[in-house]
């Protein structure tokens, strides 16, 4: 009796110790699988103002017109005038007397965002259905509708992020307030 009771408590103790051991081992668990940036090329859609992350390919507004009219205009109007407050993507004036209409042309600080957003999220009924070439073309068309690029200006990884946006200086970074 005495021995078996002692055995049981020894086992219980061992069980307790090993539980503690496992949990301290978990502190250093490292289960991420290495991957290369090259293997992430089709997964990482982030296109930054510096030009980093832009894919190869190019497009002009002239090439993008037909895509815009067939894939975008139903929600954004033939000229980007929209059919609701959320879908107006052309026009506006930040200095207007009234509360300003804020669109790609009047408000957005970076042209890179136009490409980045269209490639990841538009058309809203079939996101990511455009290939990179088409995304360049239709992004060019949205910038063209806003009077920011010429009809035949070639936009690519180098030129698109450099398109000057009218409200580029309109933002104040508050990220130091945390």
């Amino acid at each position, binding site marked *: 009796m005495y021995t078996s009771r002692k055995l049981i408590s020894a086992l219980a103790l061992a069980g307790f110790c090993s539980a503690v051991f496992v949990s301290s081992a*978990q502190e250093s668990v490292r289960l991420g699988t290495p991957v290369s940036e090259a293997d992430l090329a089709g997964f990482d859609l982030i296109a930054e*103002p510096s030009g980093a992350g832009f894919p190869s390919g190019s497009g002009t507004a002239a090439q993008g017109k037909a895509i815009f009219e067939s894939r975008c205009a139903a929600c954004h109007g033939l000229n980007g005038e929209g059919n609701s407050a*959320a879908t107006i993507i052309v026009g506006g004036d930040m200095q207007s007397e009234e509360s300003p209409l804020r669109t790609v042309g009047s408000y957005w600080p970076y042209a890179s965002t136009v490409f980045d957003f269209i490639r990841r999220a538009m058309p809203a009924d079939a996101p990511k259905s455009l290939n990179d070439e088409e995304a360049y073309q239709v992004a060019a068309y949205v910038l063209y509708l806003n009077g920011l690029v010429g009809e035949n200006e070639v936009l690519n990884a180098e030129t698109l992020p450099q398109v000057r946006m009218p409200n580029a200086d309109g933002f104040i970074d508050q990220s130091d307030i945390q």
Partner: protein
Amino acid sequence: MKQGKLEKKRQPRLEKVAGNGLLSRRHLLGLGLGGAGLAMSQAVMGQDAGLKLEIPGWSKTPGPGPSAYGSASSHVGLERQSGFGNPLYPGGGASRSPLQHLQGTITPNNLHFERHHAGVPDIDPAGHKLVINGLVRQPLVFDYEDLLKYTMVSRIYFLECSGNSGALLYGGNPDGTAQSLHGLVSCAEWTGIPISTLLEEAGVLPEARWIAAVGADAASMGRSVPLNKAMDDSMLALFQNGEPVRPEQGYPMRLFNPGWEGNTSVKWLTQIKVTREPAQFRDETSKYTDTMPDRKSLQFTFPMDVKSLITSPSGQMTVARNGVYRVNGIAWSGSGSIRRVEVSADGGSTWADALIDSQQLDKALTRFSIPWQWDGSPAVLQSRATDSTGNVQPTREAVIAAKGTINRYHNPCIQSWGVSPSGEVTNVYV
């Protein structure tokens, strides 16, 4: 007549602490001034001495047995409130928590507010990946099952959309309820892995300053977060109130940035890219930026301000008749814990300290209450919170004076509920 007699007897015992009937919070604690608690229950419940009780039917029939996944009582019809679906914005929109019907500080998972930009994806965790790449020594991919093996932390935090309460700034909606005006705030216990653990595994390079977080929804919604926040208290949340995070909240995993505007806590998280500069996603440039009267716009306005709100009585409720009521509500701050909540019944002329009914946790909802004796005259109920950093919740006037009305984000203003002589409670502007 009978009511009048009772009032007369109780009156001297009630300690008035501010104008228009606010009573000492001590009455809620049952401290001193004996009899006030009784006065409250009689006035509110209207007990009738002649009531004859019988055994109800449900005490005579066995009910159904245990169930696989519980649901609320069929007599409780709490619902989130959302706008109508818009075919031109597939899956987009928001739903709001029924704040006026909830108590305590934890929002049930079914009722946590939602905001989606392209609907709720149906994610099979076996096919979901979390990638960490960019400015790291070794880009990594994580599987859901593997992530479950990491050491986790559990914390209770509120989450608030920065568009919450925005309607108050343009002064609409007299019919608004606590839910329709302020229901884009909820609070849950979130359990997950500190983001710092995962970033350290990948090895952050010295030049890194930001992370770009991307979701696996159809919008691939992205937000940039400063690296110091990510290394401080940001979490990869896998559980919400003990169960796997709900699909509407990012199943199988979401980023959670405590105290910060809800949109930064990217749902369905599938990528963290470590960067030198912010990615300048659409939802941190075109949206979630705050345009000031001079037309300059504040960007990356992260912490949510100190705020509070009376949830009962609140818009569209009726104060049935004269008597003593438990006025109560919620308070929270993205910068710390709630130190103090004051309540006014006369539109802000005089204030009294409310009782804090719950724990006062960092960046979590806190419940407050105060007894209020309504004598049938018009009243305006307000609450005003102060947080642990000393920030005091501003009036609507002060918010508009400081930030104008072009902007609709980050409105922490004091809510005013008007009580009419007939007892109707409405959203008013004072």
